[in-house]
């Protein structure tokens, strides 16, 4: 090596000097390519390009090995877990019905207020492949970049809560600034007290909520959500919980936040690549009913021959909701003879199947439940169907396997009868 250096000494010095000049230029020159990478220094692009492929390979190897082991060999307890998850799905479907009712009501109110809301319409899942390696620069690298539509300032989150925003975008890698970095800022709002502030990171990696006046009461444990004011994160995403409240400087509180997402152990994240802003529209009349879901789990009874629907027959004197009773369809069987009653006041039973009985105490068949039981506002009501909680005449039974809509259908026509507003 020494002889080579000696023989080509001038060339080596030339290369060294050129290298230094190129290095100096790379420090100064900024990439003037796409709009998203125009502020990136060339030297930073090279640095990232040199380091991230190794990280990507290692993460890939690690995941592949782990996947093979977990998916093909280590399957102990999977059957039991599967059974448990199925039960959980059933419970969540019931819960979903209740929540969709709440959401429908909220949308109706939003419609009245001409409220515009943002929806997350598309996300890209990405693997965390590296970090800055310094506690003064709280950033991570993800294995997706410009190639899949990621752009600067896009929100990054996990299912638990927000993580940060995209700071730099490379063709196949992106740099994400965590919310715990001291140069980050996120508009946040406290869930119950509705106090707004700015979420910032500190030098030691903590997350604090700033700009909340010291005369406000902020309880420890309160949930913090995004306020949408930063134009990066849609409103309502979980940020974390208040862990400590103290008096800060300049008449503001010093509120420490425990992030909902575990920022120190991130593996996969979602990049919000597309969000829509649209007018809130009211829920239409076709809803998935708790009764349908309950009925799906019960032994079916053959449909009875169609009988003439006599709206008058369903009218029950003394009903709490005459309008509902007027539109009742086919009050046959036990339901037709049931005395008027009020809604189930307990509102606590949410376990599917445990109370899947008809009004007369016997198991209710699918069709019978569909004809008799209306869409209750909560699962408890669904579990105890009542003759007075009848569906509107225009409400058609939905297939048992249909799920509640996640976005409001375009039909803003409210049902003629609101069976049970919250």
């Amino acid at each position, binding site marked *: *090596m020494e002889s080579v250096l000696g023989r080509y000494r001038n060339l080596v010095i030339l290369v060294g000097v050129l290298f230094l000049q190129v290095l100096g230029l790379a420090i100064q020159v900024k990439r003037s390519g796409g709009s998203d990478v125009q502020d990136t220094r060339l030297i930073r692009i090279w640095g990232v390009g040199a380091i991230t492929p190794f990280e990507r390979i290692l993460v890939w190897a690690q995941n592949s090995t782990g996947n093979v082991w977990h998916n093909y060999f280590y399957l102990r307890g999977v059957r039991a877990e599967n059974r448990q998850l199925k039960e959980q799905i059933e419970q969540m479907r019931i819960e979903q019905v209740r929540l969709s009712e709440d959401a429908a009501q909220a949308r109706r109110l939003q419609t009245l207020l001409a409220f515009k809301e943002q929806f997350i319409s598309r996300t890209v899942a990405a693997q965390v492949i590296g970090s800055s390696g310094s506690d003064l620069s709280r950033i991570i690298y993800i294995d997706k970049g410009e190639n899949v539509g990621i752009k600067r300032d896009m929100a990054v989150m996990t299912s638990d809560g927000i993580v940060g925003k995209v700071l730099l975008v490379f063709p196949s890698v992106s740099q994400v600034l965590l919310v715990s970095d001291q140069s980050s800022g996120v508009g946040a709002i406290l869930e119950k007290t509705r106090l707004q502030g700015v979420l910032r990171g500190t030098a030691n990696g903590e997350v604090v909520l700033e700009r909340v006046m010291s005369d406000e009461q902020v309880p420890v444990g309160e949930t913090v959500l995004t306020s949408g004011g930063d134009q990066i994160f849609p409103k309502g995403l979980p940020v974390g919980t208040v862990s400590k409240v103290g008096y800060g400087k300049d008449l503001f509180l010093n509120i420490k936040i425990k992030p909902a997402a575990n920022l120190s152990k991130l593996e996969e994240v979602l990049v919000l690549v597309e969000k829509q802003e649209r007018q809130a529209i009211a829920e239409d009349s076709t809803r998935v009913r708790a009764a349908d879901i309950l009925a799906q789990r019960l032994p079916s009874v053959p449909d009875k021959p169609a009988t003439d629907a006599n709206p008058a027959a369903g009218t029950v004197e003394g009903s709490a909701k005459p309008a509902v009773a007027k539109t009742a369809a086919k009050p046959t069987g036990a339901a037709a003879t049931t005395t008027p009653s009020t809604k189930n006041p307990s509102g606590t039973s949410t376990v599917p199947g445990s109370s899947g009985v008809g009004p007369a105490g016997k198991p209710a068949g699918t069709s019978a439940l569909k004809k008799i039981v209306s869409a209750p506002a909560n699962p408890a009501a669904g579990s105890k169907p009542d003759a007075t909680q009848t569906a509107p005449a225009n409400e058609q039974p939905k297939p048992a396997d249909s799920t509640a809509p996640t976005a409001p259908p375009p039909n803003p026509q409210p049902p003629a009868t609101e069976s049970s507003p919250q």
Partner: protein
Amino acid sequence: MPITYTSNEQVEVYRFSIPVTIGVPLLALFVQAFLPLRFPRFAVYFDLPLLVTIFFAMARRSPVAGLFTGAVIGLAQDMLGHNPIGIYGIANTVVGYGASSLGVKLDVENAGARLLVTLGFSLIQSAVHFTVARGMVNMNVTWSWPHVILGGLANAILGVALFFLLDKFKQRT
């Protein structure tokens, strides 16, 4: 065994092969960027690029080579963050120059000397980094003695082990 050289003793200067010269700092940078994903506190206390800078600078015993080693490794470390490039570069340049200058006078094979030198240069690096970050870049950083000393001790202990490992790559001139 004395840890300082007298004027009669010959100072041993080492060289490294090109793959080691390039590969070891790159590996240190890679590990420094990757390990915090699994061990979040790693980046708080440990600084592998700094240790590699100290090792190469002390082994080469040339101030010019030491400062260039520190500059290159520091700049590469800066590239992975989002702060202005040059903060670690300046800090590691100072460390590289100091370590190589000290290497001329110290027996760098001695574990005790290595521990003390690494601890000292870790503190110096923290001080220079803080000064540059606070004074030049206007970053909101705070000086914490417990953090700096703990980090220095952690680096020193890791450094002693790492240096013995890297000794195997040394080549006599």
